[in-house]
């Protein structure tokens, strides 16, 4: 499969979205809304559900399936209010000791004037900083598109995994082509240069694991894809539940602080899976 075919699979409109997974992981899922400041960002779904016998906070970018829903969900592109909603729900989880599962599936934060006017840069910056202070276990999974700061704003976690046909990138191939070539039609070349496939990302030590998808990709069998994701998320979450919050926060700091240790070419580099 070519790199561009993987990008197309990661973005495929039949691909399961966050709520497809969350409702299979926790059938009693109850959605919670609002940032408690001014708005509710529908591009980010959040709420509580029982997962492996424990109340868990689920967060996930949500793309829409129909055109109407896509517009309503803003194609999974969060506004500043979305990051504030995420932190509000993280505080909620911290208060009750609920672990957090974050599913990432976004082309990026919303690139529009309104987002700029309401401080999207600071909202993402603040979210990234605050995730390092959330004293409960967090496991994140890239399930489709992991686009830029909009994705990382939901991606600071103790463990980060990726579905096989998902991508994670500093910028979308179109944006990277626009920046490097000043021509966004060079997206295929940009995608190849960016090394954004799950195999490449795990090779760089940026995620802990690639979760295999069912035959014909996640789009072909939602239940099987959800079972594979569930198994992997839980395998990473389980050991975290026994850690003290100070251990968690120190490890989370170290995980990102030394995520690029490859530059010093240290042997055996890579986040460890306990």
């Amino acid at each position, binding site marked *: 499969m070519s790199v561009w075919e993987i990008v197309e699979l990661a973005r495929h409109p039949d691909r399961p979205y966050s709520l497809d997974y969350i409702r299979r992981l926790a059938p009693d899922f109850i959605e919670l809304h609002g940032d408690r400041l001014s708005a509710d960002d529908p591009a980010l779904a959040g709420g509580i559900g029982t997962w492996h016998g424990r109340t868990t906070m689920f967060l996930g970018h949500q793309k829409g399936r129909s055109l109407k829903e896509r517009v309503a969900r803003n194609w999974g592109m969060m506004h500043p209010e979305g990051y504030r909603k995420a932190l509000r729900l993280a505080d909620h989880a911290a208060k009750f000791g609920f672990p957090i599962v974050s599913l990432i599936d976004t082309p990026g934060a919303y690139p529009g004037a309104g987002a700029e006017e309401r401080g999207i840069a600071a909202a993402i910056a603040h979210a990234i900083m605050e995730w*390092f202070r959330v004293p409960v276990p967090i496991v994140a999974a890239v399930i489709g598109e992991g686009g830029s700061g909009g994705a990382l704003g939901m991606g600071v976690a103790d463990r980060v995994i990726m579905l096989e046909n998902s991508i994670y990138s500093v910028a979308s191939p179109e944006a990277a082509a626009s920046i490097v070539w000043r021509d966004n039609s060079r997206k295929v070349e940009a995608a190849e240069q960016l090394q954004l496939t799950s195999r490449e990302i795990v090779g760089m030590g940026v995620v802990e694991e690639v979760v295999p998808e069912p035959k014909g990709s996640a789009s072909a069998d939602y239940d099987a894809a959800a079972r594979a994701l569930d198994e992997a998320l839980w395998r990473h979450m389980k050991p975290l539940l026994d850690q003290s919050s100070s251990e968690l926060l120190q490890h989370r700091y170290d995980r*990102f602080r030394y995520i690029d240790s490859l530059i010093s070419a240290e042997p055996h580099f890579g986040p460890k899976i306990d």
Partner: protein
Amino acid sequence: MAIIEQHREEVAIQGAELPEILLPTNCPGCGIALEQEELRSHNYVCLNCAHHFRLGADVWIPLIADSGSWQERWTDVRSHDLLNWTVPKPYQETVERLLEDGLNEAVRTGTCTVAHQPIWLATFDFGFVGGTLSIVAGERLARGMEQAALSRTPYVLVSASGGARMQEGVLALMQLAKVNAAVGRLHSSGAPFFSVLTDPTFGGTAASLALLGDINIAEPGAAIGFTGPRVIKQATYADLPPGFQSAEFQLAHGQVDMVVPRTELRPLLAHLLEMYP
């Protein structure tokens, strides 16, 4: 602001003589013919229209640091072409050429004093691949912030950056998390963090450390935002009003505390350092 007035008289507007920079013959702001010497002693701010010229790290350091106080750190941390990036230009060659030109990555950091008060200083250099946040830039920023947090030393940042560096892929994106983890430690330590935003500050740099200062200080007319105007227009077909994403716009939208001319920056920093001992 009487005390600041007093500082303005006592604290020189530059720490040491600034190096010469390449200037156009006429000011892009007002068209007046420019004189290097006059501008150099005026922090490269047009005396006629107050246009602020973009400065590299080699100018920002003597502008802020007391003469002879600058101790640069980690100059030997180097970029590598991790992704084997070849088109349209080989990344390794780009980096090596810039290093030969005397630029040392998109961020330089070290310790110095401002009016005899010790600080950690980090400054972006827009001339090095658009001041993009790279692994080396992130490493220097994180190490400096960790040191400042340990010694509870005030931290001053000067940003000028297009965002994360494409040629380092997802590892460049991870610098936002790496640096913000360190920003969190800096804040927890109680050391003050003064962030100076200059033209331009965008993308991953705006979405990480640049807007997280205890006090955010923008230069007049600086463009500051997350998504650049070209991409906003491409994505939304919106017509952006004049002054969109300017320093003054960000002041009106609550993102920065003040817009301060470059000729007043050093006296202001000197005064703030006294107020946040």
